[in-house]
């Protein structure tokens, strides 16, 4: 299938990109990895008249710990998360997530920033960033600002950035001691979107859960936190009944749409199962296991 025609710009600097974006506000789309945009263009579901290709912005490609957080440049390719030793060792929730995004080839082109900016509840990073309480950094003509992840996803394919802003960096707070996280994704086959997936990041205080954040994938119109599920965990020791209560809560508070992946009841129940499994794994890691 062949995309419609468009005008193409390939800025060499962020400033140039921002200036182009301002110039063509409303008409232009940012081309990052293109692994969501180009397929949509090939089916002519998206027909932007102007594309601003930001793949030459090498300055936006990095994964590095800076003091109290992990900073990921928006144009970092997904595979870099798999390859990063700091992600593998200290951010297992992120590592889990990176391994199940699309397939290995798509991960060589797709970008972390693109995955998040697309604000697609079916993408995997939004739930994970919610679980991490990440911060998004956006740059626009008025300069740079940070947006808390809880405020970032505003609607289906809608985020809190203005038309003339570009997502430049994601910051993940460094998990403290006794922290653990996990991402469990139920998919029909490798490369598919989730039937349901749960991202859990928690911290233990002794045997009890001191803090927990849970993000859910593809069971709502907007990427969501399972706050009722979180409430079932905080202050409690993990037991079968606590796990089940948290899973049930997540199942109840999500809002899946029926499709070929399953009906509403099935997806709710899978949310329960994914949340339970992610919590279990997160606890194991918080206790020093893998």
């Amino acid at each position, binding site marked *: 299938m062949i995309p419609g025609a468009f005008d*193409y710009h390939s800025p060499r600097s962020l400033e140039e990109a921002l200036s182009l974006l301002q110039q063509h506000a409303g008409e232009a789309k940012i081309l990052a990895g293109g692994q969501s945009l*180009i397929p949509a263009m090939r089916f002519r579901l998206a027909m932007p008249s102007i594309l601003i290709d930001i793949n030459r912005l090498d300055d936006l490609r990095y994964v590095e710990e800076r003091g109290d957080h992990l900073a990921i440049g928006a144009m970092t390719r997904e595979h870099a998360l798999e390859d990063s030793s700091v992600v593998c060792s200290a951010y297992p929730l992120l590592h889990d997530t990176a391994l199940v995004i699309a397939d290995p*080839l798509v991960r060589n082109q797709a970008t972390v920033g693109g995955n998040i900016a697309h604000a697609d509840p079916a993408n995997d990073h939004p739930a994970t960033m919610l679980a991490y309480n990440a911060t998004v950094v956006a740059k626009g003509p008025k300069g740079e600002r940070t947006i808390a992840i809880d405020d970032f996803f505003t609607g289906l394919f809608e985020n809190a950035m203005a038309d003339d802003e570009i997502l430049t960096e994601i910051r993940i707070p460094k998990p403290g001691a006794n922290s653990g996280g996990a991402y469990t994704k139920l998919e029909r086959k490798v490369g598919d979107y989730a039937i349901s997936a749960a991202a859990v990041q928690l911290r233990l205080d002794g045997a009890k859960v001191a803090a927990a954040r849970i993000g859910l994938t593809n069971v709502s119109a907007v990427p969501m936190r399972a706050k009722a599920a979180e409430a079932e965990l905080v202050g409690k020791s993990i037991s079968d009944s606590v796990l089940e209560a948290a899973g049930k809560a997540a199942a109840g508070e999500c809002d899946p749409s029926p499709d070929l992946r399953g009906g509403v009841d099935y997806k709710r129940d899978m949310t329960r199962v994914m949340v339970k499994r992610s919590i279990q794994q997160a606890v194991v890691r918080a206790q020093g296991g893998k």
Partner: protein
Amino acid sequence: MSEHEVTLTINGESVTRSVEARTLLVHFIREDLSLTGTHIGCDTTSCGACTVLLNGKPVKSCTVFAVQAEGAAVETIEGVAAGGELHPLQEGFWEKHGLQCGYCTPGMIMTAKHFLEKNPNPSEDEIRHGISGNLCRCTGYNKIVEAIQYASQKLQADAGGE
């Protein structure tokens, strides 16, 4: 509608062509450069038959615009046999019957080539995950896995011998 001049290296050789911005890299390779070893098997970035190396990394060339490859190094199946000698992967696919109709094969080999560079001694499970972006309908994958295992052993032996 913009036309752009694209200069890139293809299998080590520099080429320049004028293309529409919307020209997909796979069409550029097949039509503008007449290298038809890279194939098209789907329209949803699902099958991997179009896999090429872009600056050393395997990507689905149906989901990249040719203009994005400006200044890049692109490698296709036609460049894999260096100096006319088959690469251990090509040998492995031949020895182990890792192909039947041959249509997914170039994409599989490009993916496997990079995979083995990153992971020279992979487990079977790692190989299966490594090629999970490439669909094959003919082989049932068993012998593709064996072909890649053959190549990994040969590459390690060759490396050891140097």
